[in-house]
């Protein structure tokens, strides 16, 4: 090749090279403007979905593109594909799909998580549909008749079921009925018979563990006057630490183990689900809980199962599991001390308020002093508030170290409810029944006797003015000492 030829070759290839650099620049600016990431391979089948829905529901598609599913090549049809025999299958643009992706569908790849979830109480959340709470939503607050939606109470549809989950019904058109869907309640009963909804915590379509690990995810449902876990967490030192050091939490790390990937603070997930060095992550949220704080009288979490003759993980083992998490930041003595304090609070609630009030109400219902209709008398609401609202607040507050919830939103209001509302109302109802001289008069007399026995117990004596002189004296002495200690002069 002559010298001139070589020079020409250099210029030609050089021009090609410069053009390629222009392409590089275009790619770079494209990335910067649209924030696009590396190309994702989509199966041919799902490509059509992506193309159309990029226009129809662009955010949905972008959220999926940001997900780990997209990076791993899991696209639309991998989750939404349905068999023609599926009860919720329908024909959409030439494809047989189902809109609801149930935990059974997710278990194709996430079998372990689904197995743990199905064994948990989260999966049973829709059990509420058979409970007293549902009577409230369907009858007391709402209506299933002329004001109902397909025979369901709008209060339940928009309220209770959105957290607890609906029973999804398929209408004549092959689509879920509007009363039962949309619904992503965590205990949803799906058309394929499976329980639950993974998207309740792992919001679609990004399904990011960052969202699931965020306390706000739990807080969608675990909040409010009857179980203010979110508010309690935020008032506790744990929640304060999380707020202060959120940037160090590495919420997107995988694995995500307290004490290893992050050490700044615990979240809900940290204690109740996530991995430690010794424990792997579990989707059975009951595995680290020792008390059941839900019912009128708290019992250990394995009590029901033991009564039913079922073998489950013992409450002692579950407490050990939880202590394993605590031990990442706290010494054993500290943790043990906390549990002693916590147990004493539950014991106080049970013995002073839960057991007595429940016994009274049971007697009154059985003996006809209270009508068989739920919530038609003030006393029933009083009792409900006592255990379901204030009583739970006191117990939950103690369980997660929020002293104000334990005291002022808790035991203070429990006490007020009990002494100033429950006791007088019981007395009034019984006296009415006795005055009527009907069938329930005898029960009413027994109830009053029982109430008297309760109020004469050591913890209630003060109410009757019967505090012992010894106790009075020691209380007075303590008050004097503190006055002296904190005197202004």
């Amino acid at each position: 090749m002559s010298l001139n030829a070589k020079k020409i070759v250099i210029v030609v290839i050089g021009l090609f090279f410069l053009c390629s650099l222009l392409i590089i620049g275009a790619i770079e600016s494209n990335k910067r403007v649209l924030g696009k990431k590396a190309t994702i391979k989509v199966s041919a089948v799902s490509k059509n979905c992506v193309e159309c829905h990029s226009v129809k529901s662009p955010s949905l598609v972008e959220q999926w593109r940001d997900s780990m599913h997209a990076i791993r090549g899991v696209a639309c049809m991998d989750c939404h594909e349905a068999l023609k025999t599926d009860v919720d299958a329908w024909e959409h643009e030439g494809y047989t799909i189902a809109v609801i992706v149930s935990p059974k569908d997710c278990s194709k790849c996430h079998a372990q998580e689904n197995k743990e979830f199905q064994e948990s109480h989260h999966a049973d959340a829709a059990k509420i549909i058979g409970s007293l709470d549902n009577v409230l939503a369907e009858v007391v607050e709402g209506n299933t008749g002329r004001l109902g939606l397909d025979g369901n109470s709008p209060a339940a549809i928009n309220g209770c079921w959105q957290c607890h989950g609906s029973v999804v019904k398929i209408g004549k058109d092959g689509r879920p009925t509007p009363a039962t869907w949309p619904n992503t309640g965590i205990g949803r009963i799906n058309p394929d018979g499976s329980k639950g909804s993974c998207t309740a915590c792992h919001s679609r379509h990004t399904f990011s563990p960052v969202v699931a690990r965020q306390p706000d995810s739990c807080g969608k449902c675990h909040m409010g006057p009857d179980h203010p876990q979110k508010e309690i967490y935020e008032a506790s030192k744990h929640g304060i630490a999380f707020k202060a050091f959120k940037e160090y939490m590495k919420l997107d790390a995988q694995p995500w183990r307290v004490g290893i990937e992050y050490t700044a603070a615990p979240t809900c997930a940290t204690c109740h689900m996530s991995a430690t060095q010794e424990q792997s992550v579990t989707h059975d949220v009951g595995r680290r809980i020792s008390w059941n704080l839900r019912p009128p009288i708290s019992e250990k979490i394995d009590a029901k199962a033991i009564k039913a003759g079922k073998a489950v993980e013992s409450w002692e083992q579950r407490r050990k599991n939880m202590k394993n998490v605590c031990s990442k930041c706290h010494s054993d003595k500290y943790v043990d001390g906390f549990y002693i304090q916590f147990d004493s609070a539950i014991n106080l609630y049970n013995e002073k308020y839960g057991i007595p009030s429940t016994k009274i109400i049971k007697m009154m219902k059985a003996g006809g002093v209270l009508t068989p209709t739920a919530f038609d008398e003030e006393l029933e609401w009083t009792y409900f508030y006592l255990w379901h609202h204030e009583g739970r607040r006191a117990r939950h507050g103690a369980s997660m170290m929020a002293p104000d919830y334990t005291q002022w939103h808790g035991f203070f209001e429990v006490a007020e409810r009990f002494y100033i509302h429950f006791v007088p109302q019981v007395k009034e109802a019984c006296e009415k029944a006795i005055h009527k001289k009907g069938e329930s008069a005898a029960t009413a007399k027994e109830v009053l006797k029982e109430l008297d026995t309760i109020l004469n117990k050591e913890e209630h004596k003060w109410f009757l003015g019967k505090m012992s002189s010894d106790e009075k004296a020691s209380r007075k002495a303590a008050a004097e000492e503190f006055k002296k200690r904190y005197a202004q002069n």
Partner: protein
Amino acid sequence: MPIPKLNFLLKWTKERIPVDVQDLKSISNEPVPNHLKHWWFALGGTPAILFCIQIVTGIFLLFYYVPTPTEAYDSVTKITHEVRFGWYIRSIHKWASELMIVTVMLHMSRVYFTGAYRKPRELNWMVGVIILFVTLGLAFTGYSLTYDQLSYWAAVVGTEIAESTPLVGPLAADFIRGGQEISGNTLTRLYVFHIVIFPAALAGLVVLHIIFVRLQGVTQFEFERERRSRHRTYPLFPDHILTEAILGILILYLLTMMAIIFPAGLGDRADPLMTPEHIKPEWYFFASFRWLKLTNVYIGVIGQIFFVGVIIAWPFIDRIFENKFPKAELSVWIGILGFSFYLILTIWEALV
């Protein structure tokens, strides 16, 4: 006609750096033998150009890479997705490394099949073989730095193979790992090998390699057509330099196109607690990997050490063959056999 200001500048420089430009030109304008006009003789310069590209792109990557187990993967992700043109630099670096290994092997084949390793060039051949292994070492250590699943586990398997070497295995593995098991030390160590030890060694070896070539001259031999030409050489400046320039710009263009069409990707974050189902090294180790799978650990490792020994000592082995069987051209046949064996094992591993 030089402008007055330029004259002044030249005079100013010459008074302070007394070098005669004309002398310099005549010293360095070494006549280049005609056969170098054949393009497959440019295979030696190509890896050198690629090495320079690797150093430049490597330094840019160094600005953002963090060599700790917790930060490495994130820093590579940052380079790929956030840093301006980071994906381009990283893709160039990746493809240039693959191309460098290919061209070093091709150059080695060219030298082998043209018998350019024979006396008096045996020492240069051995320097070249060491260059090949340092290049492979650079590739291995560089690949381990991304700290994704494949890269981490490839490093684990690599150190385990090293460990199974008889006698020196455990010591060698401890040295590579920085301890008895893979830890933060390992990544730091591989990092130091990749950015300091191997590049410095390679630079020194390449300089030595070129010195040898200049001392001994490029192997002189000619083809039928060239015997008729009057001149047996052609000038380094500007002819051969332009050839090298064509090569350089062609490489840059090719690498850029590879970066556009096949940008460097990243697998899952390395998880020491989760062994992936299929661990595979990079393609240049496929033959070695397949060989180890076919044989037991002793034949596998010792066999490869033997193979390497034969390659290094080849000029001397070849001399024995030449003396015993002068016309048979055994070296060509053995070369074809050896190369085919490497190719077959590589393709086998790739397909299975």
